[in-house]
């Protein structure tokens, strides 16, 4: 069974962390993953940096730019992760924009992910319709879970369609915005979280965008299965480095 599916069955709220591969330094990818696992994180999203990350706010943009300057490439990431399953057992997801994956070759990319032990992919600019028509069979052949986003503006019909195509969890974008840390959520978010919970979807939901601390994590997971922290983690690691990871994670859960 896919590690993500297994993890989703655990009776707890899941904490997932997004970080940019090759950041702050090119060789930090694996040490960051290991430190996050050691600190008790449930699941990881490894960001494959892209020159033009449309859906990201300034923090993740800057980390992507830096990672690319550091020399990060798709091939380099795969090399770094080649032995990752010797030490890491939590679910690993690669999050990246579609163009680098297309250039690598979708089939070759999926093959490589499955060889390494990557469990799933999040590709924000690969729409569910295109995935369903052209790529779903390839992903499934390689045992990969593909994760789709929904937002407060996504229509009910479309959420149902996304739910039907999802084989892992649904990534619930907390509010209409690009990625970036917020200090709290308002009534609109609570309403949205509740509305989605009441839809009784097949796929569990994990909330992302704007989660930054224990308070926002708690608010996001009142109904949802878990939450993802990205920008706030990148900011922390930029300031404190890998040694700051343990305290950061313990401060959330």
């Amino acid at each position, binding site marked *: 069974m896919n590690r993500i599916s297994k993890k989703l069955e655990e009776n707890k709220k899941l904490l997932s962390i997004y970080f940019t591969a090759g950041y702050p330094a090119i060789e930090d990818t694996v040490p960051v993953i290991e430190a996050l696992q050691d600190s008790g994180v449930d699941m990881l999203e490894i960001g494959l940096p*892209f*020159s*033009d*990350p*449309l*859906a*990201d*706010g*300034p923090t993740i*943009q*800057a980390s992507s*730019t830096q990672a*690319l300057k550091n020399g990060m*490439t*798709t*091939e380099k990431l795969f090399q770094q992760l080649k032995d990752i399953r010797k030490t890491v057992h939590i679910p690993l997801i690669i999050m990246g*924009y*579609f*163009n*680098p*994956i*297309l*250039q*690598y070759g979708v089939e070759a990319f999926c093959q490589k992910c499955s060889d390494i032990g990557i469990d799933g992919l999040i590709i*924000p*600019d*690969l*729409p*569910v319709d*295109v995935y369903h028509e052209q790529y779903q069979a390839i992903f499934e052949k390689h045992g990969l879970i593909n994760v*789709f*986003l*929904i*937002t407060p*503006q*996504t*229509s009910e019909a*479309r959420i149902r369609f996304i739910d039907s195509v999802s084989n892992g969890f649904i990534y619930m*974008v907390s509010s*209409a*915005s*690009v990625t970036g840390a917020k200090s709290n959520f308002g009534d609109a978010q609570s309403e949205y979280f509740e509305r989605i919970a009441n839809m009784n979807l097949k796929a569990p939901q994990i909330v992302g965008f704007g989660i930054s601390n224990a308070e926002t994590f708690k608010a996001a997971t009142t109904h949802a299965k878990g939450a993802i922290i990205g920008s706030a983690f990148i900011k922390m690691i930029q300031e404190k480095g890998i040694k700051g990871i343990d305290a950061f994670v313990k401060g959330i859960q």
Partner: protein
Amino acid sequence: MDTYNVNEKGYYGEFGGAYIPEMLYPNVEELRQQYLSIMNEDSFKEEFNQLLKDYVGRPSPLYFAKRLSEKHGAKIYLKREDLNHTGAHKINNTIGQILMAKKLGKKRIIAETGAGQHGVATATVCALMGIDCVVYMGEIDIARQSPNVARMKMLGAEVRPALSGSRTLKDATNEAIRDWINNPVDTHYIIGSAIGPHPYPDMVTRFQSIISEEIKWQLQEKEGRQNPDYVVACIGGGSNAAGTYYHFLDDEKVGIIAVEAAGKGIDSGESAATSVLGKEGIIHGCKTLLMQTPDGQITEPYSISAGLDYPGVGPMHAHLYNSGRGEFFSVTDNDAMKAGLELCKTEGIIPAIESSHALAIFNHKKFNQNDVVVISLSGRGDKDLNTYIDYFDL
């Protein structure tokens, strides 16, 4: 019959589509579902045509360039988009899109701009309609195109610097898209070229297609025939080209000629000749040809002309290139500047440097004496005076 136009799913051959994050889906989908029916409403057409006539100054003349024709041995006509209000073809699209935004009930407009032409054209129509306008512009472009920045400000627009990435047009486009993600309900994004996710390339093309619609009847009056032998246009993202080709796309007797910016030369590492240097990929929500590293990172183009400085081309043009329907040329900075100056001296017209690229076609292709060649003179050179001054040491 083959068609070089867009299909129902938003593709030109294999190019196009809408590769957008889910956050943009409601807006883009709303537009996709409504743009054709809105454009077909009588009230829309009436207002659009009225504004093009009374405000933009259309029809733009189709001018027979006698001296230029004698010099190059062909019957050369110039489609004078440079005489439009604000000085380029860009306003055809912004008039159309501001009316579209109003029909969709949008209250706020965002746009990206490189040279500032599209930014000015957007700020202009927003002033005309009394709608708030934010224009994203790369920090580097803000510095090198300061008169257009001042124009936008005078017209009441807010110019926001794009500080990310390489701080030029592609980054301004990223910032505009991010703004749209952050403002999903009340905002319309006026894209400035035939690029972006479906339905943008088709919508922009249709608004610009007034260019070839006029060419047909104007040529009928002048030559007793509707179709030229060739249509020629420069390509940045490809909106003036798409409008110039539109009514001739499926008539293979009309040669389609596209001119891209070679910058300092195709092999110089400083070029914007996307069809030659690009590979299939995804940029700003569209599958098309784009300049990128083998790893799929989008690279920075270069051209002396800020309006041609885009690392992709619209999907229509990617298809025209791949299918062989269009003949593509790349013209260096030097060739373009010379052709621009030649037009000044032979016809008394100072062209935009973008348009000068199209005019340089005569150094690259021989025509027959009787060939009717229509060139899109997409803009006037006022905005480029500083570049001309520096280049020619005037």
